[in-house]
């Protein structure tokens, strides 16, 4: 059923009276500064709001309701404990600018989180402040620039980015005023070292790498790459979106990376919330440490405090109004404490097991792996190029039809260089029988594609809406409701 808009439940004068102070006063704001017409906020009862948004929620797929193998997104179980204990009243009611003395419990968590993240990444220092992966990337590249500037190498403004990179990588380079130098991947999925060698030069600021890459394979010659870039005077940036694949197994610091960001909302299982919030903590090697973004938690004589510009005068500065997405950090902290030291490598191990198992089963079922010679990391790519060509059923069609089978679709059409790709990341928290059911569904869809392609192309059928008209959405812009 189509759900009305909340505004369509609205009636003039209807109101949830328990929810705001009653006052007969009027404002003393001078007339020329005053609002004259009420904003169009809904006027509904509390029940209407509760019912409306409860019903809306049911129209979502989510980890809590569906297998959600969205590649590059690490949709693993978000333990409920993380939410419950991050939301204790004392934590929620504390003002960010209240004295550190009133937040020693909270700061202890943040400090320990910094320490744990250093350990799992092998970096020298960590700042928790970036509010998502992309802001972590921004902080990282800004630090790389600040590092070069501190050495009077202001001209180093070229960032090397593989063609398989996530869009945030080149976009970040631009935001930092850098130029992007793209290098290709080889058919094996590894980076073309020769191209890299040719790409570096006196203007090289560094390289942005994801390892395992977004192609779902581990970059085997990472040490050689590090040497090439370092020899050219550049730094290595690690995009930590795929950290889940190697947690506790290899550390970016040991691979030679100078700067990394982590997606705590992936690897450390904080919820994605239908788009966010995330947390993109950054880690750096010793030489980049002076440039870390503020604030950072310091510890002195068993007291914790936020470090400021005075402590870190070379910092690239502040990236948020306060301390970043603290509540997300709390959730990540709780999760990491529950995993413990033994739990970290286990994450990578079972993520890899699930991915490689799913890959093996799909290959047995006749699907084409994009990198058939390679081990999967925590994710892998199936290409439906053949199906698209022979049956005129493409990756999008498979994706939409999967929804009817009760599975969220894998990531489609990313990375861009693999045609008709499905990037599949099961994560370690899914059970074998659910992976098997997913394989069965894909086999069934393949069968449908062969016998009744129109059925697949018309999917989905069982969701609140059929396939949506994206072209109309972009052409006849309807971005706010006008009644």
């Amino acid at each position, binding site marked *: 059923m189509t759900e009305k808009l909340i505004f369509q439940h609205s009636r003039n004068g209807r109101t949830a009276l328990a929810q705001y*102070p009653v006052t007969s006063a009027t404002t003393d704001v001078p007339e020329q500064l005053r609002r004259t017409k009420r904003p169009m906020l809904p006027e509904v009862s509390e029940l209407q709001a509760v019912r409306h948004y409860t019903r809306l929620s049911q129209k979502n797929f989510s980890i809590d309701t569906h297998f959600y193998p969205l590649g590059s997104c690490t949709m693993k179980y978000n333990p409920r404990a993380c939410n419950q204990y991050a939301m204790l009243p004392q*934590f929620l009611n504390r003002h960010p600018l209240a004295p550190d003395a009133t937040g020693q419990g909270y700061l202890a968590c943040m400090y320990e989180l910094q320490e744990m993240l250093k350990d799992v990444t092998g970096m020298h220092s960590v700042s928790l402040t970036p509010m998502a992966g992309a802001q972590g990337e921004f902080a990282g590249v800004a630090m790389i620039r600040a590092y070069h500037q501190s050495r009077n190498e202001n001209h180093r403004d070229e960032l090397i980015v593989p063609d398989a990179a996530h869009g945030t990588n080149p976009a970040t380079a631009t*935001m930092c005023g850098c130029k992007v130098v793209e290098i290709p991947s080889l058919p094996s999925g590894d980076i073309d070292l020769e191209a890299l060698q040719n790409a570096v030069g006196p203007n090289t600021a560094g390289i942005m790498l994801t390892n395992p890459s977004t192609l779902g394979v581990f970059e085997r010659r*990472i040490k050689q790459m590090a040497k090439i870039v370092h020899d050219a005077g550049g730094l290595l940036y690690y995009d930590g979106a795929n950290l889940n694949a190697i947690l506790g197994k290899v550390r970016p610091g040991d691979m030679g990376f100078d700067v990394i960001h982590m997606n705590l909302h992936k690897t450390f299982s904080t919820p994605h*919330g239908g788009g966010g919030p995330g947390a993109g903590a950054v880690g750096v090697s010793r030489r980049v440490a002076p440039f870390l973004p503020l604030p950072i938690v310091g510890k002195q004589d068993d007291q914790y405090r936020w470090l400021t510009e005075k402590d870190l005068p070379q910092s690239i500065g502040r990236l948020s109004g306060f301390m970043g997405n603290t509540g997300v950090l709390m959730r990540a902290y709780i999760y990491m404490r529950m995993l413990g030291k033994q739990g970290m490598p286990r994450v990578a191990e079972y993520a890899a097991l699930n991915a490689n198992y799913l890959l093996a089963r799909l290959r047995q079922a006749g699907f084409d792996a994009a990198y058939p010679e390679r081990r999967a990391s925590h994710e892998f790519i199936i290409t439906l190029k053949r199906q698209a060509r022979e049956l005129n059923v493409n990756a999008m069609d498979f994706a939409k039809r999967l929804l009817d089978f009760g599975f969220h679709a894998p990531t489609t059409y990313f990375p861009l260089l693999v045609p008709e790709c499905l990037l599949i990341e099961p994560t370690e928290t899914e059970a074998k029988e659910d992976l098997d059911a997913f394989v069965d569904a894909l086999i069934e869809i393949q069968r449908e594609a062969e016998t009744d392609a129109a059925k697949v192309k018309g999917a989905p059928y069982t969701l609140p809406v059929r396939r949506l008209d994206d072209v109309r959405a972009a052409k006849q812009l309807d*971005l706010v409701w006008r009644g």
Partner: protein
Amino acid sequence: MPFIPHTEDDVSEMLATIGVASIESLFEEIPAELRAQPLTQVPNAMTEMQIGQLMQRRAEQDGSYLNFIGAGAYQHHIPAAVWAIVTRGEFYSAYTPYQAEASQGTLQLLYEYQTMMASLTGMEVSNASLYDGASALSEACLMAVRANRKSQSAKFLLPYTVNPTYGKVAKAIAGNQNLQFESVSFDAKQGITLVDALTPYQHEDITALVIQQPNFFGQLEDVDALTDWAHAKGAMVIAVVNPTSLAILKPPGEWGSDGKGADIVVGDGQPLGVPLASGGPYFGFITTRMEYVRQMPGRIIGRTVDMEGRQGFTLTLQAREQHIRRGKATSNICTNQGLLVTAATIYMSIVGAHGLENVAITCQQRTTELINALTAIDGVKLAFNGPRFHEAVITLNRNIHDVLDALLKHGIVGGYDISSYYPQLGNALLVCATEVRSSEDIAAYAKALAEILSGA
């Protein structure tokens, strides 16, 4: 194993299917010399019970204080229904709504949110969120460079009455693209930016003037005059606003004597149902006019129809975004603050237009009450005259740091020390009282402060 469902049988069957002998073999492509040693800084695993007890202790260690700080984050009543719904798994554990058909809940909510924010700010379009208010200002400046075709300078006027942290963040983020920010001084009596202070820039190419309303001191700027000044010279106006205040203040979309309004509006959405939580997660909002929509950063939801003509919602105008446009995108933002927007949308629905007006009026009253109570004390002065919303600067005849420390012992977080930002103001303290502070709370504060200042 916590959070891992595999039985021993599962593992052996799966390994057999893969055709390897052990899980370790799956990592064989990783050069051996790179393999990690056991972790040393991560403690042993805790059960949920143990971590729960630890967090409970840490929460108690933090304690509960009567809070009188605002300065960009405001303590408001949040209806219990808000977070009960926000934390439903279907909202909480969903990803970005890339598969529109499987995300209609989130998408419709975001469309409703866009509508509410556009209306609240008096603008035509809104995105689906940015990280927070401070970073939203940076994005607005970057957007203005793209949107203001008349200006080549990438130079911004940033009055001292704008939250100083917002300025710092703008410099940290937008500075990398060589945007320049010029400070503008304020009137010492009223604590607002006068048009006079802008005249030095009369003949310069200015991309945009930033106006915060209410400003960092809680005072109300003469937004019409400032807007007129900017528009007259081809500069854009970027408004930084508190969404609660917009229930009673003229929306930026109507600023200026011609009512044409600001060009870009940003702010922090925290006051709309998001708890203080030591600083986050909050969310940034940005609204603008339709003509600039393609310059706006972040996700946008559009309403459309499905194959059967039924209403549906989907991400749109994605060609602005990094996953399509890569190095040429309007911003690098990807993950945003969706869950907080969920909270804000439900908050605005429950509180409603009338409720938000009452909240705003009550906040204003409470702050007036607070100012009256505090300035009645010897040694306490009000820094500025003129209309204000729910914050004010007071000055003390004693070192602020010591006074705040002494107040803590009374269980009171007494305000935000702004003396280092504004040395010219002396011992200046920014105080705030919202609707959650009762008259008794205010009296308790006044009593404690009087005691401390009288040296008792």
